[in-house]
Structures are given as structure tokens and as C-alpha cells.
């Protein structure tokens, strides 16, 4: 018998009822993250059927998607700054949490923020846990060795009522990332390159486990960036085995175990990494040492090229043509140097301290080009406070960027922060789908370094050039 993979260990530990030919497995969920957009219909179902939330203590609630990124101190402010449906949705979240006895990290909470940012920050995200949320980027939490994936609203209701989900066991793909990153190349470029390699449907039906040497060199925030965008490669979850860096990140966090509980947890977590003879359904490798900064040119994250390279030649494929038309880019021509309108630094992919520090360091002493609007949105109120304590807000503001309250913001344009029709945005978020950042918005995905270099030059730029001047 072969050994077990990280995924199998976590999966097996959470089986309440094993799967059979006739029925999927009943899988226990250790942490259910909820936010205002995908829960109203789930709570409505509970109310209709007069059901209660089984484990409010395992449910972590915040507001991020349709929440304004301008300050809201009272609910009256909300009516002023948010459009009526968004305000109603946020009020519904507050009411539902109160009604069902769930603690909400809402307005006024120092911990409010993007759901995938605050779970780890609070120490609620831990190795070996099963974590779900009505949001596909729940894959982020896999960076800690948790099995974490997105669900729909009906499944959210299932978890609220039973703390369990009906699941079929997925396949497992091992992705080995080897080699050290060159200067100017970041975790974002690694995941963009991987999606380019396997394609946006490459991971369908699979959970990805990341293996390889540079993992040890990436901090938790960089690992989260990689697991975050794993969903864009079609896989529901990405996982990385916990190690010393994971432990160091978690120690002392508000919801992390402490004292003897910590020691017991560490003992358990040490057994999680895949056994040397673990079997995978598919194996892929990526040589990270050869990577350049990456940039998307089309309307899905798999349409990606090194920033210095031209857009691929036209294959005649209708989806490819439609994407190029929409983006107003030409096949076979570079997009480096193309004029841009907006730079967005934020989202659950790249809004943490590592990202903000790097962006601030690069922009210091420069100005955002006159033709560009730059928005910097920290991932959580805690990050906002930490960044302000380091004076990063001052650096962004004096360079001409806007500095906001935390939230999803321009990542999906639900809260009023949108890219205008036809405008071209360089964004550190995760989806360049048509209209994702606003009706008719055109999005280029890139790392924070590429975004900053582009903001300064007013065109799509290579961050390595900025360093050279």
C-alpha cells in the first residue's frame, strides 16, 4: 500500500460517513467563512424551514464584497455611501448574524476585511482543517495545509445546518515548483505562469498539492497568493504542507491554539505532509528560475505571457478572437508600452503586507502618471493599521494614489469602485474576465511590482526596468 498525500490525510480525518457508489461522503467542516453576498439566500432557507445554525462557533463572518471602501462608522453612513441594494445586503448580513448568534467582524471591528485575508490573520485558518466559504478563492487557505474550497449558497445552508457537506473525493495533482525566483519575479508570476501552462480547465476535478524547493523560501503571504489563484487553473483547492514558516506565522494569533493546545496541534500538524510514496493522479512541474514577470492579455487568467513577449499569434479560434477584440490588443504585437487608465493594488490575491511594502518601496520617490488613477486597498483593517503604522499610506498618497478602507473593492466592482467602460486597468487581483471590474472594463492581471511600474510609466511596464533606473 502506498503512503498518503496531505490531501488524503485531511480528507480521511473528516469523514463522518464514507462515500459509496450510491451516496457521496459526509465531510465534516471545521471552519465556515461567510460574507454578505452568498449567504442571504442560505439564511432565508434556514428561516423558511425554522432551522438553526449548528455551530456558530465554527462560523466566521465578515463583510467585504459589496462593502464600501470609504469609511463607514454608523449604519446611517452606509445609506449615504452605498447603493440601496448593497446597503440592504449588508444590513441583511448584520441582521442574520444577530438572529443566528454568529459573531460578525463588521463595521467598527479592527478585524474586518476580505474573508480570505482575515481567516489566516486571526489564526482561524490552520493546518489540517477543512474550510469552506461561498467564494471560490477559499482555495487561499490551502497555503496552511488546510483543505479549503468554495461552495455555493445551497451548500452554505447545508454547512450552517449540519456543519457537513456531501462530497465526492476529487483527484489529486502534484505541482512541483523548482528553482529560485529571479529579481522582479514574484509568487503572482509563478501562479500566472502555472495557469498559462495547465490552462484554465487544467485542474478541473482535482485538488492541487504544491511541492518543491522554493516553497520553503516563500513566506505565508506569497504562498497564499499561489493557492488563491489555484482556482483559476480549474482546481477547487490548492494545498501546501505546513512547515516552520507556517508555524511561525500562526503562533500567537488570536484564534490559534496556545500553551499545551499549541504543542498538541504542532504534534498533529507535523504528520500532515505527504508521505514520500504518496500517489498522485497527475504530476506537473514548473521551473521557477526561468520565469519572467507575467501579464495577461486576454479575458481569462490562462491568457498570459511574459511581460516582454508579444501576444500569441491568431489561431482563428473564436474565443481567442473575441478576447483580443474585447481587450483591444493585437495578435503578435507586444502589450508592453500600451497606455493604461487604472492601477488597482488589492484583492485577496495581493493586498497583504508583503505586497503593500513592496509596492510602497517601489513607488517611493516616484509619481503616479497623470493619466492614471491608482487605488490601493488593503486586505483588512488590521493590514490597514499596520501599513499606516509603517507610513505606507503616506508614501502611496504622496505618489498620487488613493488609500482606502479594506474590502474586495475593484476586484469585482460591486461596491462602487469600478473600472469605467473601455478603460484599461492593471490589477493585482485574480480575474480578467470581461466586465469583471466594471461594465466594459478591460483588465490586465499582474504582480504588485508590475502594477507599480505601470502606474509610474502610465503604460504597461516591466518592473525590472524601474529597478534599473
Amino acid at each position: 500500500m502506498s503512503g498518503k498525500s496531505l490531501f488524503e490525510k485531511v480528507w480521511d480525518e473528516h469523514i463522518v460517513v464514507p462515500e459509496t457508489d450510491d451516496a457521496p461522503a459526509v465531510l465534516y467542516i471545521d471552519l465556515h467563512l461567510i460574507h454578505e453576498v452568498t449567504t442571504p439566500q442560505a439564511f432565508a432557507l434556514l428561516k423558511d424551514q425554522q432551522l438553526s445554525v449548528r455551530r456558530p462557533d465554527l462560523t466566521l463572518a465578515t463583510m467585504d464584497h459589496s462593502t464600501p471602501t470609504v469609511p463607514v462608522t454608523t449604519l446611517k453612513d452606509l445609506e449615504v455611501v452605498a447603493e440601496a441594494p448593497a446597503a440592504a445586503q449588508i444590513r441583511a448580513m448584520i441582521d442574520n448574524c444577530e438572529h443566528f448568534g454568529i459573531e460578525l467582524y463588521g463595521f467598527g471591528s479592527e478585524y474586518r476585511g476580505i474573508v480570505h485575508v482575515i481567516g489566516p490573520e486571526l489564526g482561524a485558518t490552520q493546518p489540517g482543517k477543512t474550510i469552506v466559504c461561498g467564494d471560490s478563492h477559499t482555495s487561499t487557505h490551502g497555503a496552511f495545509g488546510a483543505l479549503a474550497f468554495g461552495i455555493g449558497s445551497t451548500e452554505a445552508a447545508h454547512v450552517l445546518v449540519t456543519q457537513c457537506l456531501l462530497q465526492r473525493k476529487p483527484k489529486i495533482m502534484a505541482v512541483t515548483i523548482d528553482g529560485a525566483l529571479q529579481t522582479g519575479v514574484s509568487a503572482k508570476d509563478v501562479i500566472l505562469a502555472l495557469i498559462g501552462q495547465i490552462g484554465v480547465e487544467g485542474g478541473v476535478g482535482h485538488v492541487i498539492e504544491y511541492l518543491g524547493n522554493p516553497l520553503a523560501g516563500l513566506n505565508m503571504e506569497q504562498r497564499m497568493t499561489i493557492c488563491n489563484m489555484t482556482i483559476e487553473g480549474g482546481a477547487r483547492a490548492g494545498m501546501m504542507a505546513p512547515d516552520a514558516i507556517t508555524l511561525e506565522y500562526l503562533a500567537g494569533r488570536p484564534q490559534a491554539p496556545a500553551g499545551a493546545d499549541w504543542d498538541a496541534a504542532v504534534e498533529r500538524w507535523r504528520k500532515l505532509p505527504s508521505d514520500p510514496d504518496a500517489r498522485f493522479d497527475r504530476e506537473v512541474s514548473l521551473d521557477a528560475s526561468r520565469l519572467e514577470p507575467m501579464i495577461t492579455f486576454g479575458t481569462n487568467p490562462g491568457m498570459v505571457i511574459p511581460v516582454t513577449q508579444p501576444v500569441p499569434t491568431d489561431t482563428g479560434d473564436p474565443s481567442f478572437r473575441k478576447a483580443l477584440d474585447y481587450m483591444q490588443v493585437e495578435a503578435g504585437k507586444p502589450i508592453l508600452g500600451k497606455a493604461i487608465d487604472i492601477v488597482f493594488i488589492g484583492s485577496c490575491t495581493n493586498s497583504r503586507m508583503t505586497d503593500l511594502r513592496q509596492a510602497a518601496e517601489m513607488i517611493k520617490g516616484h509619481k503616479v502618471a497623470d493619466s492614471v488613477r491608482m487605488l490601493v486597498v488593503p486586505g483588512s483593517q488590521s493590514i490597514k493599521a499596520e501599513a499606516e503604522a509603517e507610513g505606507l499610506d503616506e508614501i502611496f498618497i504622496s505618489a498620487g494614489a488613493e488609500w482606502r478602507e479594506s474590502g474586495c473593492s475593484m476586484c469585482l466592482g460591486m461596491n462602487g469602485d469600478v473600472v469605467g467602460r473601455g478603460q484599461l486597468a492593471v490589477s493585482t487581483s485574480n480575474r480578467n474576465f470581461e466586465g469583471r471590474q466594471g461594465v466594459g472594463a478591460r483588465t490586465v492581471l499582474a504582480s504588485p511590482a508590475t502594477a507599480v511600474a505601470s502606474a509610474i510609466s502610465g503604460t504597461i511596464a516591466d518592473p525590472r526596468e524601474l529597478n534599473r533606473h
Partner: protein
Amino acid sequence: MEKIIRIESKTLVLPLDDVDTDQIIPARFLTTTTRDGIGNALFADWRYDANGEPNADFVLNGPDVAGCEVLVAGRNFGCGSSREHAPWALVDFGIRAVVSTAIADIFRNNSLKNGLVPVIVDADTHQYLLDNPGITVIVDVKQRTLSLPDGRTATFPIDGFSRHCIMNGIDQLGFLRQQEAAIADFETNRPWTP
């Protein structure tokens, strides 16, 4: 949830790959707290122009749309976000089955819980469907088959449990709640607590 055993319908064909949930229903329609009228927002940015007028060349605005229950799409339909609003919008519009060679995982899961049958077929059948829009097909959930007018049939995968739920209009929450004893047992006996 409506029971679905067999669907006989003309096809609507959207021959694009990687149609994501942001296209199926754009984020600005997600501030709703209900599902009412959500079909109006289906494919909103492709269906309507900047002035809110229907785009004549978009398939959903064609003359033969009424009564079509089967949508044929390119590879990897439903990729992107986990928003269940996507299957809700399709079902509200009247679609009962989506056919492709690959359907994204979360969308597929959400569809199965809302009476939308994900039909994954082989590349040849798929190409035939793409090349011949508007033909009448039969999706037979019981037999797990899709039949073409020329008599050919293709089988599609659907696990026994989901099939049973779709055919009987069963809400899976009821099934999960029957596992209460096992869940309580698991909570008491697990070696560690979250």
C-alpha cells in the same frame, strides 16, 4: 426543486470556451438577497447593449429561444466564481441542461442542487452540437444519455446520488439532516476539536 427525468428540447448554442460565471451573471446583480427575477440578468452584458437594448446577434435574443431548455456551450463552462446565482439565472430563464465537454467543478455542483443537469459529452458529439444549432435533442437523466436527431446517443456521467436527487426533485439538505446521529458521534469522538 422540479423533478427532471427527461428533457426534449431544441438547443441554444453559445460556441465560446471558458464562459465564466461573471458572464453568466455579472457581479452588479449579486446585491440581491433573493432569487426573484434573476433570469433577467442572465448574460446581461452580452444580451444587452450599453443602452439596455437587446443585442440582436446574441443567441438568447434569437427568434427561437422560447421553450429551449438545453444550452450547448464551449469547453469549461461556468468557470470562475462560486456564485450560485449563475445556475439560478439559467434555471429562471428556462434552461434545464447545459452541455459541454467540460464543466467547472463548483458550477457543476451548484447546478446539481438546482435542477440544472450538467451534461458532459465526448468531443465529437459536442462538435456536432456546436455545428448544428437548434436541433432537437433528448437528455435522459435516467439513462444518462443525450440523443441526437440522427439516432446517435452519447452517455454522460452523473453519479447515482445526484441522479436520484434530480429525478425526484430531492433537496439534499434533508438527506444530510438524516445523518444527525453520525455527525454528533463524529463531533464527540474526534481526536481533536477545531
